[in-house]
């Protein structure tokens, strides 16, 4: 399949370690540890055997709370992003290793040093999903404390990346000479010299890590506000976003690529990578059945009640999840009951009205309703059908690929790797061997040196 005369696009795929939302099923007997390294190693090795582009790991900096209590219905707790990625570099050879690190609760020198280190330790496979946060709740665990003005989120993150890039660029490729006879270890005394005097950061000195194989980690971005989109279009190599309906996804894709061009960048150097879930079966019916089963597991009765409480903003724990929707109206005065998790709700009254109509029309219990509205898997079908759905979206510019989120650890990606990836390979849209030496090369991104400087764009100009 092609669109016009264009050659087939290659599909980019990442494997996301299951996170701490209710989409991750822990109650299944097949669900293993979310902490032990063996679970991470299993998913990474499976992804590498299937020639995936990268492994993806999210971050948690404070345990989520609901109604002032630590949320206990979903997976709680996870290991630290960067040490896990460093350890995974020991058990993989080609797979990219991308982790989320919040830009808000770190200083640029240390972060730049850690990512340069990861890039060295993995032989050029490091990636950073840059996330911003202003939330005071998470800030209670950190020196800088809680508050960052919303408007400053992206200006601080942008300046942080500007500083990090100066640091990553501060060693020349040939600075380490190690000429024992001449007694010269470095070619110049001022290796790593840098200075940055800006609004958010005032730093100078010499960076301690020599230039890494990729020079800079691959950057992803995952914020969806207008500022977030501009930030991503300016700085990122890829956007980790939501799956949207097909036409909407195409419009989003075009908009982000346009924004990248507005920053003087090539459209091909910004990959659009929605996060996607899947359910497979030998037949379409089996796949639908499997998908429904997974959704049942994802939404326990307790989870369904809590889901409604987000909108009602009331304690609904007395209601039976297998009974009808609450007759009580939402509490419009109450503050959000949820902390440590992004949830955007429309007007609660309109939402509740819509759900009541739906529940009545289909005779749904609370739990049935939540299963119904919390969304089906992105891709449901036979391996061949799922491969076709993925390829269709990629060839028609609704995405460049997907970050796949299994519902279970550690084996949740096994079937996809064994069954769907070969289908994509048969279609000539997915690699059968790794060809690049680095993550950047495997993703088909142009080398850094060939890129025009984007930092002159006035709109998001940080500091010098």
């Amino acid at each position, binding site marked *: 399949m092609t669109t016009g005369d264009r050659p087939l696009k290659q599909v980019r795929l990442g494997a996301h370690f299951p996170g701490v939302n209710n989409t991750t099923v*822990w*109650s299944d007997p097949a669900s293993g540890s979310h*902490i032990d*390294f063996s679970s991470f*190693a299993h998913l990474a090795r499976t992804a590498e055997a299937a020639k995936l582009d990268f492994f993806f790991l999210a971050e*948690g*900096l*404070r*345990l989520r709370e609901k109604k002032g209590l*630590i949320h*206990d*219905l979903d997976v*709680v*707790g*996870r*290991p*630290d992003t*960067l*040490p*896990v990625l*460093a*350890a995974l*570099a*020991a*058990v993989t050879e080609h797979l990219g290793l991308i982790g989320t690190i919040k830009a808000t*609760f*770190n200083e640029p*020198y*240390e972060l730049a*040093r*850690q990512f*340069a*280190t*990861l890039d*060295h*330790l993995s032989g050029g496979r490091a990636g950073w999903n840059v996330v911003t946060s202003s939330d005071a709740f998470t800030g*209670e*665990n*950190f*020196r800088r404390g809680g508050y960052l003005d919303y408007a400053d989120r992206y200006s601080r993150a942008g300046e942080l990346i500007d500083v990090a890039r100066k640091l990553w660029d501060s060693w020349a490729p040939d600075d*380490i000479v*190690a*000429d*024992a006879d001449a*007694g010269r*270890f470095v*070619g*110049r*005394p*001022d290796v*790593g010299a840098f200075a940055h005097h800006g609004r958010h*950061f005032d*730093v100078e*000195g*010499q960076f*301690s*890590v*020599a230039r890494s194989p990729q020079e800079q980690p691959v950057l992803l971005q995952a914020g969806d506000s207008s500022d977030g989109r501009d930030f991503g279009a300016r700085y990122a190599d890829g956007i980790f976003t939501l799956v949207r309906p097909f036409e909407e996804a195409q419009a989003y894709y075009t908009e982000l690529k346009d924004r990248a061009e507005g920053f003087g960048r090539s459209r091909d150097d910004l990959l659009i990578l929605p996060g996607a879930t899947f359910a497979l079966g030998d037949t379409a019916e089996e796949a639908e059945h499997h998908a429904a089963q997974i959704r049942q597991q994802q939404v326990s*009765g*307790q989870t369904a009640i809590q889901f409604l409480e987000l909108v009602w903003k009331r304690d609904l724990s007395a209601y039976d999840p297998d009974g009808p929707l609450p007759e009580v109206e939402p509490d419009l005065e109450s503050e959000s009951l949820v902390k440590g998790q992004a949830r955007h709700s429309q007007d609660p009254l309109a939402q509740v009205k819509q759900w009541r109509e739906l529940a009545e029309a289909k005779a749904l219990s609370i739990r049935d309703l939540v299963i119904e509205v919390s969304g089906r898997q992105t891709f449901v079908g036979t391996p061949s059908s799922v491969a076709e759905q993925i390829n269709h979206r990629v060839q028609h510019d609704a995405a460049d690929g997907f970050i796949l989120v299994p519902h279970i650890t550690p084996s949740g990606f096994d079937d996809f790797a064994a069954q769907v990836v070969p289908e994509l390979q048969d279609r000539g849209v997915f690699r059968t061997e790794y060809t690049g030496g680095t993550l950047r090369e495997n993703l088909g991104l142009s080398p850094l040196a060939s890129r025009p400087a984007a930092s002159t764009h006035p709109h998001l100009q940080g500091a010098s």
Partner: protein
Amino acid sequence: MTRLLHTAVALDGVGWHPAAWRDDADNARRLHDADYWLELALLTERGHIDLLTIDDTLALQSEGYGVIEPRTDRVRGRIDAVLLASRIAPLTTHIGFVPTVVTTHTEPFHVAKAIATLDFVSTGRAGVRLKVGASQQEARLVGRRTFPPFDLDSLDDPAVQATLREVFQEAADFTEVLHRLWDSWEDGAEIRDTATGRFVDREKLHYIDFSGEWFSVKGPLTVPRPPQGQPIVSVLGHGTDPYRLGALGSDLLYVTPRDAEHAVGIVDEIRWIEESVHRLRPRSRVLADVVVVLGDTEREAADRLARLDELAGEPLSSDALVFTGTATQLADLVESWEPTGINGVRFRPATNLHDLPRLVRDVVPELQRRGIQREGYAGRTLRENLGLARPSSRYAVQEAS
């Protein structure tokens, strides 16, 4: 009867002598490569050494304290020690990993999370060496605070004294936060109770509510309780401030005695401080640091050091005792420390290329023959190998009593 002593190897670059790289240029080019460090770790593990420390600082290496000399003849550049340890730990089996972390410029929450994770990826072999960073140069890299400039000659200056007091007090708070965070999940907090739909028993998760002069941390940690309960905390000290930091919350202290008599004095001071701060945890394991220059004969070792010194352009100057001699002589030295109350030694190889293989091949069997070092690994975790019990969470203890 002699007691078993603990053994550690300290890694820094291709060795502790500043000219070590001149004999080992190929490896000096590999200092940013994981494989070089993995080879060292696997070699050291063959010697049944309890743990490896990996030196680190945020700043580029420098010779004078706090002053970066514009020279090109010394090793420059190094990678983050915590991530390096995480990278090689899964490929080893027994040895403990103790990377260095600078407390002055890092977040205790991030560090607690990272070391707990190192404990998971090493299945219970993680530790950390805490180090203060009071230099103006390092502070400028981070940009969060400013310190007065100083060097070894201005240590008595009141402003410098105030800075040092501040960073050591902060490091003590840092240690307290690490321990509270590692205890913030009780063992068995993950219950996966399908009947009630609960993944954790939140009664077993605890806010630590630490509030101090330099940071406040709410908790609980986002990482569950690590395999060792509390990974091993260690400090290198040359005097009362770091001894006190060690007494307040670390498991291991590296010290630098000049001789056996000095070692006795150091151990006495540490034990006295431990009593004065009403230390509750088991007494610190005190390891004596020694820079090691080995030869098949005493003469060969001395010649090696002389040659390295000549390449460096100056005699080796170290905070620790510099030993030159044969494996038997080094075993004699270690044995002579045994009655002083020292609990072990941390070897700093002058060159990894020459001295580390000889430590493993020649010195370890000699120590084992004399009954000073055990014949193999005693336990599966670093804590077990150090003879330290796995502590319960302080929060569980409080509720039980």
